[in-house]
């Protein structure tokens, strides 16, 4: 057992070393290959060769779309939790705001009857979620961490109750016939039709790549350094002249905007939005995904989001001693979280600086422990 652990440990380090020492062009080539792989993934011609990877109980293309939405959400939440260290338990609420904004302005079943095209509603959805992020953040970001957690959780619950109970938001009856994104092939067939999930997946994948580039740049700018200083020691950061409240609000709002974007994309694909989509568990799953992947690390968040969404769906259709594993998926999910936090609290692919923080903490003297 111990030797296996050591073997994994050294192996992982060798890979990390190699990656950091590899010349620039090899790194780009590997990143390029990974991106090409993911663009090719939803094609049946490609994934049928991947053995046990594709899901068997539901269409793999559709599942990939769901996974990509989760990845986008994880990237967004990573800004809030990973970079700025703010504990947000109600992140899915922003997803809801985005999806509902699109639904209200585009669906024929909405009371507004504006019937906008999807593309017009998209910027509005992002703007509104950003505003709601600022709106929620202004009173709550002055609170300490634990209170922030409960208030954000309450926020997600409020959104759900409002969506279920208000006449305007239609509750479970929901909004149908939400238009798809625009565009058509040369033969006049729409690119974003009902049946083919691939264009949606490619769209989200492209959005993810753009968002990751943006977030990476943001993180390496003054803003990102301010976030790290807040995460490590808020009081010290304040003393050093970092306007902590402003930057916390920034993190909250940009995270929210990405959540709203994901919601708008989801609404454009699903073309039906109802309050049944707003389970509180979703917020927790995304948070768990970020921490599982390695909070503070964009790649970690991507891996975490993808892995969690994929594994939950992968359990479908597998029988084990005559028991359908799908029924047990959340129990396993919970157990994995516990085990993971005990043995690898920094996540699968940790942020280097964070990993160092963990190591430091471990060395601190624990009295009477």
């Amino acid at each position, binding site marked *: 057992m111990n030797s296996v652990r050591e073997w994994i440990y050294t192996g992982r380090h060798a890979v990390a070393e190699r990656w950091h020492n590899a010349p620039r062009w090899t790194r780009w080539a590997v990143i390029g290959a990974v991106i090409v792989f993911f663009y090719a993934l939803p094609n049946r011609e490609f994934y049928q060769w991947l053995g046990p990877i594709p899901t068997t109980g539901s269409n793999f293309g559709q599942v990939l779309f769901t996974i990509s939405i989760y990845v986008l959400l994880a990237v967004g939440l990573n800004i809030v939790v990973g970079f700025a260290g703010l504990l947000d338990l109600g992140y899915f609420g922003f997803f809801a705001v985005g999806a509902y904004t699109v639904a209200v302005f585009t669906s024929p079943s909405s009371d507004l009857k504006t019937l906008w095209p999807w593309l017009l509603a998209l910027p509005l959805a992002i703007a509104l979620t950003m505003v709601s992020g600022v709106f929620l953040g202004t009173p709550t970001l002055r609170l300490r961490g634990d209170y922030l957690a409960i208030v954000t959780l309450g926020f997600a619950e409020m959104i759900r*109750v409002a969506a279920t109970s208000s006449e305007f938001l239609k509750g479970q009856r929901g909004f149908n016939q939400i238009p798809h994104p625009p565009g058509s092939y040369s033969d006049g067939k729409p690119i974003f039709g009902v049946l083919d999930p691939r264009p949606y997946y490619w769209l989200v994948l492209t959005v993810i790549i753009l968002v990751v580039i943006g977030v990476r740049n943001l993180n390496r700018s003054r803003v990102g350094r301010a976030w790290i200083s807040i995460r490590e020691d808020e009081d010290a950061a304040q003393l050093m002249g970092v306007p902590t409240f402003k930057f916390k609000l920034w993190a909250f709002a940009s995270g929210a905007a990405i959540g709203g974007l994901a919601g708008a994309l989801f609404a454009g694909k699903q073309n039906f939005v109802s309050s049944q989509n707003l389970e509180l568990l979703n917020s927790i799953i995304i*948070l768990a995904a970020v921490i599982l992947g390695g909070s503070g690390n964009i790649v970690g968040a991507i891996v975490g989001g993808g892995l969690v969404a994929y594994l939950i769906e992968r359990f479908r259709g597998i029988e084990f001693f005559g028991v359908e594993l799908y029924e047990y998926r959340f129990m396993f999910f919970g157990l994995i*979280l516990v085990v993971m936090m005990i043995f690898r609290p920094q996540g699968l692919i940790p942020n280097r600086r964070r990993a160092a923080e963990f190591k430091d903490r471990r060395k*601190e003297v624990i009295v009477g422990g």
Partner: protein
Amino acid sequence: MDFNALFSDFGGYTITGLTVGAIYALVALGYTLVYGVLRLINFAHSEVFIAGAFAAIWGWAAFGLDRDSVVSGFGSIMLYLLVGALIAAVASAGTATVIERVAYRPLRKRNAPPLAFLITAIGASIAIAEAFGIYTRRLPVGAPTVVKNDVLFEVFGAEVTVVQLLVIGSALAMMVALDLFINRSRIGRGIRAVAQDQNTAALMGINKDRIILVVFIIGGAMAGVAGMLYDIRIGTLTYSVGFLLGLKAFTAAVLGGIGNLRGALLGGLLLGLVENYASALFGANWKDLVAFVVLVVLLMFRPTGLLGESLGRARA
């Protein structure tokens, strides 16, 4: 808004509000105790509650009471109540101990950051709730009628039933007992010491791990009794009710000032009342929203809750 509904039966809403609030308060105690000592939101506490609620029903079933049986006679009612409370308290305290051992202690030994604790807590909570869900095939489980819900007396035109009196009365009694225990006993002094400063307390010769275990056991036992009272009041139990109830209880703890025992009582009762009045005014579907709005508004003006955080600072 339906003021008519509220004022035509104001007493009735108040009594039911206090009953709901008493259960919140009992569960909130667990959150507040653990938070006061460890600065940790024990997210899995809602499942400690659920474990007690199921244990009471199954315990009664072992004594031959199924969902359709009605217990009569003062003696046997008391007997079944005590048996149910005991089984529930033991089951819940046991669950809390297991959670502490498996999910928290390893992290504490490594001095892990607070976020890691929260995630294991969430993981444990999901796993336990799902295990109950799978075991009960996600169907509601009916509880026997241990206490018949007869009207006992009237106060200001509001009927008070036996169950309501039982719930409020036992919650208050347990609160007083706990308060005395924390403030008067030797172990209570240890708890307060650890809450004030873990390291110094440990240096003074207090066994920190044992104190933490005691805190989990007390909080668990309280939640277990709350679970039994819930069974009696609601009559039916589903595996998934713990999540929202736990959230409400935590809200109650924050409302009163987390880490403060009397705050938990005050917050619980207040939340129960607010919720019930809101149900009357806006309809039952809006009550959760009102509860959270109250919390957010209160935190804006009093960031440490109504009574402030003070488990450690209470004087002996």
